[in-house]
């Protein structure tokens, strides 16, 4: 424990006179309509937005969108895949899945982000190891900006939380934008109302 005491002791000896902690405003006056802003933000970040009617056949939607996919794994009961997520033992076992499907808890208009945690992902790696990811989002569940997003108590409850914005991307070679760096090659955000709780 001595390093801990050394560090804390040195900090207390050296810390400058106390400065106050400001409150953070919500900065939500005069913002554009959330849904429109969300859609343009997702597109800007390299994601694709699709709007589906309530009650659409979501399994058929995923199949049609990825006709060549051999393995589909879904973390939401709205889609029946070829791989049962409940039977996956280790995260690495998802490495040969072509398409993953999840439902986000909420979206953020300002950035085009979708919120996912272990509750939505089942196995966190489904968001990254698969080649393509489809995320369902209820268009009513979009908050205007990041300040609103961080008001959600879910950040205090889950083990893992991600604000996911478009697919995996890199511009590390001469600034050329490439999607599918280490994570998913494409991200489709399908706006479709959440099925009413039974």
């Amino acid at each position, binding site marked *: 424990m001595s390093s801990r005491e050394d560090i804390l002791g040195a*900090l207390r000896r050296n810390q400058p006179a106390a400065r106050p902690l400001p409150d*953070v405003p919500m900065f939500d006056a005069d913002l554009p309509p959330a849904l429109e802003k969300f859609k343009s933000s997702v597109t800007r970040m390299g994601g694709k937005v699709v709007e589906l009617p309530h009650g659409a056949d979501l399994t058929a939607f995923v199949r049609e969108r990825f006709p060549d996919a051999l393995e589909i794994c879904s973390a939401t009961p709205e889609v029946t895949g070829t791989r049962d997520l409940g039977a996956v033992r280790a995260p690495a076992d998802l*490495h040969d899945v072509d398409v993953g499907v999840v439902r986000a808890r909420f979206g953020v208009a300002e950035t085009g982000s979708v919120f996912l945690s272990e509750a939505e992902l089942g196995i966190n790696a489904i968001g990254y190891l698969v080649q393509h990811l489809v995320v369902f989002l209820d268009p009513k569940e979009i908050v205007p900006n990041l300040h609103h997003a961080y008001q959600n108590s879910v950040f205090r409850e889950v083990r893992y939380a991600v604000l996911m*914005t478009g697919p995996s991307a890199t511009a590390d070679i*001469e600034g050329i934008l*490439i999607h599918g*760096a280490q994570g998913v090659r494409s991200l489709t955000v399908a706006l479709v109302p959440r099925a009413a709780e039974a």
Partner: protein
Amino acid sequence: MREKRIDHAEAASEFIASEEHVEFHDRRLWDLRKKRDRESEAIPEWEELRALASAIKEHTLTHLADYLEEFERNAIRNGAQVHWAVDAVEHNEIVLDILRTRSAKTLVKAKSMLTEECDMRPFLEKRGITVIETDLAERIQQLDDEPPSHIVVPSVHKLRQDVAEVFGRTIGTDPDNCDPHYLAESQRQDTRPYFIGAGAGMTGANFAVAETGSIVVCTNEGNADLSVNVPPLYIASLGIEKLIPRLDDLGVFVRMLSRSALGSPITQYTSHFRAPRPGTEMHIVLVDNGRSERLGMDDFWTSLKCIRCGACQNTCPVYRRSGGLSYGATYSGPIGVIIDPTFSLRKYSNLPFASTLNGSCTSVCPVKINIHEQIYKWRQVITERGQLPFVKKQAMQAAGKVLASPKLYRAAVEGTHVATEHLPRFMVYSRFNAWGRQRDVPEAPKQTFRQWYLKNRERSS
């Protein structure tokens, strides 16, 4: 032991030798700066966010011990294990011990300036651990056995043919194929088996939230999420200045980080690691390595506010035209120039002179660090402590005498056009005139300002 002084200008001459590289480097980074401007100008509250970010960081730093204790309490409650390292050596030993105890032989890691600062990779590799950098640019640098040259875009000094050469030599790609898509895809394919088989994953931290005990990591490639969410063991290493008090504060910083760095509204992945997945372990290593001492430096403690966005590098004319590697330090560019001397005043005593003091770094800094003023103050410290290199000292003493005497100054200025016209080249461009090395001294006007002023004032009166 006396450490060798880094000669920034000398090191930069290597980079400058390739016009193609300098031209691209300058243009690419300036493009990031312009994108940053577009983003910041689109947000009416941008300046308010900067003021908030600065105030939150200053509050945290003036209560850092308390916030570290709060963070530790919450992290332990979440099921993480917390370690404290006074310096780089202790950090590296802690990481090695965690890996050895769990028999982890391969470590996949996300980019972390802290582990660069600690020189962790060679330490672990010498002890039998395979370390794989998983960010594309960082992997390029690892395979080329070079440190990162930029905080956010570590291989920005390389062109596509350089990457093709490195990959051809190391991961077996076609060295003549310079297509960035081919190169990126090759690295993806080469790295995936490591993600799947690694015994441990590691990240740095962009932020650590005291009230929740969360580690927050921002990446575009998703490599941090793979490094943490696939292996059974996760180690997060962070400098103690990464703390922020509340989730509310995260909104301020996340809104500004990628906008300042790359000109995008957010990174593709903003990931919050609060607790280990069931059946796995999460370790957090809190590293001091000189930070607590820096906190006690009246003129320099606010450099600890830095969120490592790299905006000051992108905007700096000296950085853009000399390349990050020429600084010979983990942190390069304006922020490096004010941090590096705290690690070794002698070794880095040249760096604060690698600046025009134009203040552009200060005006783009999202946490309002007075970078250019600190650069100027470091110059004073270095001079006072006798760390000024001989040539610079001679030049400064001569300049000091001339500038202190109006008569000498006038004589010198009036002589300038005579000197540049009539002195042989070897005298104008000698090693005592570092300024003339990469530049042609402009032709001096025949009439000095004073001569012009006296003449025109006579005329108007």
